[in-house]
């Protein structure tokens, strides 16, 4: 099966604050990211803030111009396609954003927001077709069709996020990237949205790239999880597999289990994430790693493993031991 999305050695460096003269410092946001996404799969991307997960999604959506590597969507190299060349392809990959409050233009009605994709793509819709389309999209995300005339500030956060999802579905995409779509919602609403996403994937045969900082959520929703640290992938693991990278283990240990019987009060990780302006030469996690050895500080470990589970750590036990 050909992957719907394949990313090779993808990297992005932001120019630092601009001055009139002199060199800018460069901010390394994402580096050497390799992965494939297969049709129908949900790949989770987790990591702490600043680990480059949102940048990664925006690179794949071509909102930023990648500085290194290639992105192939359904076999087509889209890494440096011009806006016009990319335009027709954009119908097939879409994105849903984190903040439902700012992801819809406050001046638009819901109907206008939902038909903007058609307008931008130059799809002429008759008044009747437009109405039918709005109704279809609202029904897909289980919203009341009477909402079409409202402005976003009349909607709750959950409803706005549903509109955001409906709008991403408008052009019939194959792949949708979600950038923390439930991070600003209450848990009761988050649960509904997550179930909606699972239903939509089943009904419309979609593939998701799901970015989140919530490990439990990612574990529930995703088939595979990619863990990022300081712009690099440290581990890709199948759902439920025991983590091998010390960072993944730390993340998992730090997550609050909703069970008072399982209390973990010992956090072994100290310090904070280094800056992307000043990426360490060795393993990025070396400064905080409880297992660190001299090799870790000197040589950056490569991501090694089979198609299912891969780790970038000198000290991780070999993948082969996993049955």
């Amino acid at each position: 099966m050909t992957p719907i999305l394949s990313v090779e050695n993808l990297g992005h460096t932001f120019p630092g604050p601009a001055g009139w003269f002199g060199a800018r410092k460069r901010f390394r946001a994402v580096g050497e990211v390799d992965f494939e996404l297969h049709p129908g799969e949900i790949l989770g991307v987790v990591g702490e803030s600043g680990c480059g997960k949102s940048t990664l999604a925006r690179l794949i959506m071509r909102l930023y111009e990648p500085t290194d590597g290639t992105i192939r969507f359904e076999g087509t190299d889209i890494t440096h396609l011009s806006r016009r060349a990319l335009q027709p392809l954009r119908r097939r990959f879409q994105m849903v954003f984190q903040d439902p409050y700012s992801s819809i233009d406050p001046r638009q009605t819901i109907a206008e927001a939902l038909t903007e994709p058609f307008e931008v793509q130059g799809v002429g819709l008759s008044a009747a077709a437009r109405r039918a389309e709005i109704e279809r999209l609202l029904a897909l995300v289980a919203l009341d069709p009477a909402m079409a005339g409202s402005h976003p500030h009349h909607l709750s956060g959950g409803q706005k996020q549903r509109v955001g999802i409906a709008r991403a579905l408008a052009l019939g995409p194959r792949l949708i990237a979600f950038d923390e779509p439930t991070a600003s919602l209450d848990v009761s609403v988050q649960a509904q949205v997550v179930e909606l996403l699972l239903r939509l994937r089943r009904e419309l045969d979609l593939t998701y790239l799901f970015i989140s900082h919530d490990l439990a959520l990612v574990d529930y929703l995703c088939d595979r999880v990619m863990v990022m640290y300081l712009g690099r992938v440290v581990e890709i693991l199948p759902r439920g597999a025991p983590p091998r990278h010390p960072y993944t283990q730390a993340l998992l240990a730090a997550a609050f289990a909703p069970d008072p019987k399982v209390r973990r009060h010992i956090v072994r990780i100290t310090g904070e994430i280094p800056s992307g302006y000043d990426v360490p030469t060795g393993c990025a996690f070396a400064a905080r790693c409880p297992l660190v050895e001299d090799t870790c500080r000197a040589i950056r470990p490569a991501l090694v493993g089979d198609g299912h589970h891969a780790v970038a750590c000198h000290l991780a036990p070999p993948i082969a031991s996993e049955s």
Partner: protein
Amino acid sequence: MLTVDDLEIGFSTLHPLAGVDFSVARGEILGLVGESGSGKSMTAMSVMGLLPLIGGRVTRGSIRFEGEELTTLDEARYRRLRGGRIALITQNPMTSLDPMVRVGPQIDQGARLHLGLDARAARIRTVELMARMRIPDAARVYDLHPHQLSGGLRQRIVIAMALAGDPELLIADEPTTALDVIVQAQIVQLLVELVRERDLALMLITHDMGLVAQACDRVAVMYSGRIVESGPVAAIFEDPRHPYTRALIGCIPRPGMAEGTLAGIPGTVPSIADLPSGCRFHPRCPMAVAACRDRVPQTVAVAADHGVACLLAGAASGDAP
């Protein structure tokens, strides 16, 4: 130590909180949990005596702190209490820190104001306090400005500020929401240690059931301005009696859950301008019966220290072990 009894607060004709009862004892961590709009921050503001700032007032009930009634306290005496014996830790460290002032002197303030220390003594105490917060190189950080610190360090500074006046009761309003997972765990660990070590009472306001499970001794679950269930943390998680508590626990993904089992709660939290009659949860409740629309449920004890405000609480306990 802190006892809130039948608290009702009003904003002109609206009553966002009604019949709120709970108490926190010394050395205890009470989790006040609920979704946005449940009134948990409003409860914190009432205890801090900050309601007049946002145009509200206590219309009924009492708030007693070490036997002293707070609802009738005048502002001058409240001010001595606030930041002194009762301290608040807020969600966003960026807004509770003055960006123009170095962080050390901001912590000093509390000690100078409430303990009457002079500048030098306050500084020594602050550096000690910062070291206790596990702030590396505290003496150097003392002279930094807030923007030079990471989110986790800023939150430690805010906690140090709260502790500067030697409080007995800490109110932490979503203290870790803005932080990353690992830093979150570090801060919670620190808070728990401080409570144990100094025998403080901590009221932990949060929407995160995971945080409640990990840190709290007792839990009060709020919905739409009322406490619907309260009890020891183990009872709440193992034997939740209120349909809302159950639904809330059912919303949290856990390892090994099958697809399609994450329940969610249909509908939305009602707006305070348009509250449903009877039990405020009835429009969203899967078990609601006709009586729920008409009668406001009173809190009944289903076990020692475990109270539930649900008409069906007795019936609901049938399917619990």
